[in-house]
Structure formats: C-alpha cells, structure tokens
C-alpha cells in the first residue's frame, strides 16, 4: 500500500466511531502507530485530558515513548504540555539546543535517542482535549506536508472522541428518561389495580402505595411493580 493510500485508509478508520466496540485507547493506539508508519516519525504518543483537567498518557508507539511522556507529565514541562495549554502546535523543537524551553525533559529525550520533537493539539473549535507528540531521531522536525497530515489525523480522532462522548452522554440520559417514564407508567397501572380491587379513587390508591412504601422502606415504583405483577398481594398493603 502506498503512503497516501495508507493515510486515506487511516482517516476512514479513525472516523468510524459507530462500530460496536469503539474504544478510545484502541483509536489512539491506531493513530500513534500509523503516524510512525505513514509519516517520517520515529515515535508518536498521545495524551488526553482527564475530567479533572490533568493530562494522561493514553497511547504510545513504543515503550521508550511511553516512559518519556510519563516523565513529561511528572516533570510538568515539555512540548505536549505547552501544546495542550495553548491549543497551538509546537513545531521544529531541537532538543539539543542550549538553553532550550524544557531542560529536564530535553535531557531525558536525548538519552532516549530523540533529537527533535513536534506537538500538535487535539482540538475542535474552543475545546482542547489533548495533544499528539511526534519524536524524531534527527534534528529539524519533519516536512510541512507531514505536519498537515498528522494534524488531519489528530483532528479526525478528536471529532471521533467528542462524538463518542456525546453519544455516551445521550445514551445515559435516554436511559434515565426511559426509566423515569417506566416508573410513571407502572405507578399509574398499580393505581388502577388498587382502585378496582379496593374500590378507591386514584388519589386514595396513590396514597396507599406511598404509605406502604414508606412503612416498608421501599421505592414507590417497586411497590407499584409488586402490585401490578401480583407478587405483592393487595391485602398485604399497609396504610400504616
């Protein structure tokens, strides 16, 4: 497969969030691996922000890369952190330059064999959710075309992650809504059963359900379900 074909294939794979087993770690591991395969990059890694706002290492193309990213977070300095904070790319950073931006991080990176680094934001409009780190053996970073390609991959992955988050949230809310509606329905059904069996009006039937729930420390919907399904005999209801 040519480089362009592999790049196109990767874009499609990253965009496909509707697969049943969508997983953020898998998605970002794929992104890190393909950066190394398709672009002129020695190692790639991704960090995402956790709900508390701190960055976490999510995926790395190699173990050396993973350790370096962990060091970056611990030492609180490095290209990924700067990129995440500003939301802007951090490009063509020679690590061997004297008096560089990140003295501790640069020393550690050079020890691991890397001489330059680029960092690209994972950003959609206002929200920055993480950053992509690209490390090179040589000084001088990578060609402009590769930077554009890497940013395109990061953008697609960002959209996929945000869509996935939105859909999880929508699903959870919809489940809550259905649960609440089901509870309402079953309570009305139980009122009907009691109204008929005990010759009550709907208000009295509701009061009886609620009193039994309070007296026995049961949720109203559970009492109602017992009545509707016949597991809680009407004669056992206890108005207190």
């Amino acid at each position, binding site marked *: 497969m040519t480089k362009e074909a592999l790049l196109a294939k990767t874009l499609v794979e990253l965009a496909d969030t*509707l697969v049943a087993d969508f997983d953020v770690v898998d998605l970002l591991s794929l992104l890190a691996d393909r950066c190394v395969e398709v672009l002129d990059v020695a190692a790639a890694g991704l960090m995402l922000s956790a709900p508390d706002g701190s960055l976490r290492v999510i995926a790395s193309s190699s173990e050396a890369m993973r350790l370096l990213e962990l060091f970056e977070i611990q030492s609180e300095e490095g290209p990924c952190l700067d990129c995440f904070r500003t939301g802007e790319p951090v490009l063509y950073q020679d690590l061997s330059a004297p008096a560089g931006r990140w003295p501790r991080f640069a020393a550690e990176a050079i020890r691991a064999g890397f001489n330059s680094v680029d960092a690209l934001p994972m950003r959609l409009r206002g929200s920055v959710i993480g950053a992509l780190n690209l490390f090179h053996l040589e000084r001088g970073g990578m060609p402009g075309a590769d930077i554009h390609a890497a940013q395109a991959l990061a953008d697609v992955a960002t959209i996929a992650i945000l*869509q996935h988050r*939105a*859909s999880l949230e*929508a*699903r959870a*809310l*919809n489940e*809550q*809504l*259905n*649960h*609440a*509606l*089901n*509870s*309402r*329905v*079953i309570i*009305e*059904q*139980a*009122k*009907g*059963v*009691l*109204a*008929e*069996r005990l010759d009550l009006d*709907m208000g009295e039937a509701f009061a009886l359900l609620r009193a039994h729930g309070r007296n026995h420390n049961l*949720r109203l*919907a559970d009492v109602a379900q017992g009545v*509707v399904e016949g597991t809680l005999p009407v004669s056992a209801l206890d108005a207190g």
Partner: protein
Amino acid sequence: MHSERSSILHRVLGDGTDELETKRLCRACVEIIGVTGAGIMLMSGDVPRGSLCTTNEISQAIEELQYTLGEGPCVDAYNLDTPIVESDLANPSTPRWVAFTPPAVEIGVRGIFGFPLQIGAVRLGALNLYCDQPGPLTDEQHAQAVVMAGVAAQAVLILQAGAPPGALAAELDASADFQLVVHQASGMVAAQLNVSVAHALIRLRAHAFGNSRTLTEVARAVVEKELRLDATNGEKDPLP
C-alpha cells in the same frame, strides 16, 4: 449545521419567557419548515409513550390515532429509523396504515411526514409534520425537518439532564401528555378481567378501534366507571 442547530436550541430553550419550552419547540418546527402542523411524540421500545407537544387539534389527533392504533408515520419513522414521507394520504404512493389512514384523511390530513428524533444511535421518538394540501416536502424542507428533529431530541435530553435520579424532568412532566389515564385504565381492566396489564392495554385498544373512539376516551370511561370491558370479547372487539 452544528451552529444552526445550537442557535435554534438557544432560541427554543433559552429566551426566559414563561411559555413552556416544548410548545415553543413545536411551533418553531411549523415556522421553520413551513407545514400546517407539527407534533413531537416520545417513544420507547416500539410503543408511543406520550405526546410532548402539538401545534393544533389535528396534530394532536394524528398523535392520538397513532397512540390508539399503534401504527402511522411516527411509529414507522421510529421503528424503521428513517424519515417517512407520504405526500398525499388520500392517494398514497405506498398503501400502508390501513387503520390510521381513513380517520386521518377525514380530519383533513393530506401530506404527512415522520422524522426520527435522534442523536447518534439514540432514538427518543419522532417528529410528525402534516400539510392540509397534498404535495411533497422540498429538499430544503426535508433538510430542515432533519435538523429540527435533531434539535428536538437534544432539547428533550437537555431538559431531562436537570432531573434528579429516577425522576422525570419537571418541564417534561408539566408539558408532555403521557396518557396516564390509559395506564390507570389498564390497571383497572387487568384487575377486572384477571389478565396482565399488557393484555389489558390490547383490550382497551381493540375496544377503541372497534367503536371508533380514541384510546384516551375509552380509558377515561373505564376510570370513570362508565365502561366495563367484558371478559368474553363482548363489545365488538376485533382480534388484537
């Protein structure tokens, strides 16, 4: 598309007037899409759960018919997960909805359309639109209807997001018609005939259909003790 959607949402949810949001939502559908009337039906499983809002009596009747008969454009849009288009219900392109069509035509419905209320893979119900003249939706109307169905889905989830766990959001509870009397009647009929509430609902629907009444009317008659269903299918009940 995204910003259009959020600006509509903002208009519908956030202008601080006292009018119930859901009413505004339905009216916005009529104004933006340019149809005679609109309604939003909440569904779960393959069952209509209740009407969130309607813009006029005919829209309300369209929802009531579907609720009574269990068939129609909203039911199909939701179950088949696709927009349903019938440009002239009096001379339908696809013969369907044998029970729904005659009464709908009789009250003046010609063009009728159903759009699933959807966010990603989550479906909450359907938007129904009708016109009192025959004719297809233009491409633009179709596109606007898709956007408005998405807006409506988002609005429902935003409203529900503020509810305490297990409860229905107060705004939904206040404005939607969840046909509670139908569930009360189901409970009463279940107790009268010694059948499950699901079976009781089928009997209520059959009675409504067989007597050209709405499910709500029949349910109200049962709850008011003006009607008692017979154990032996006595009152013109067609087979469910």
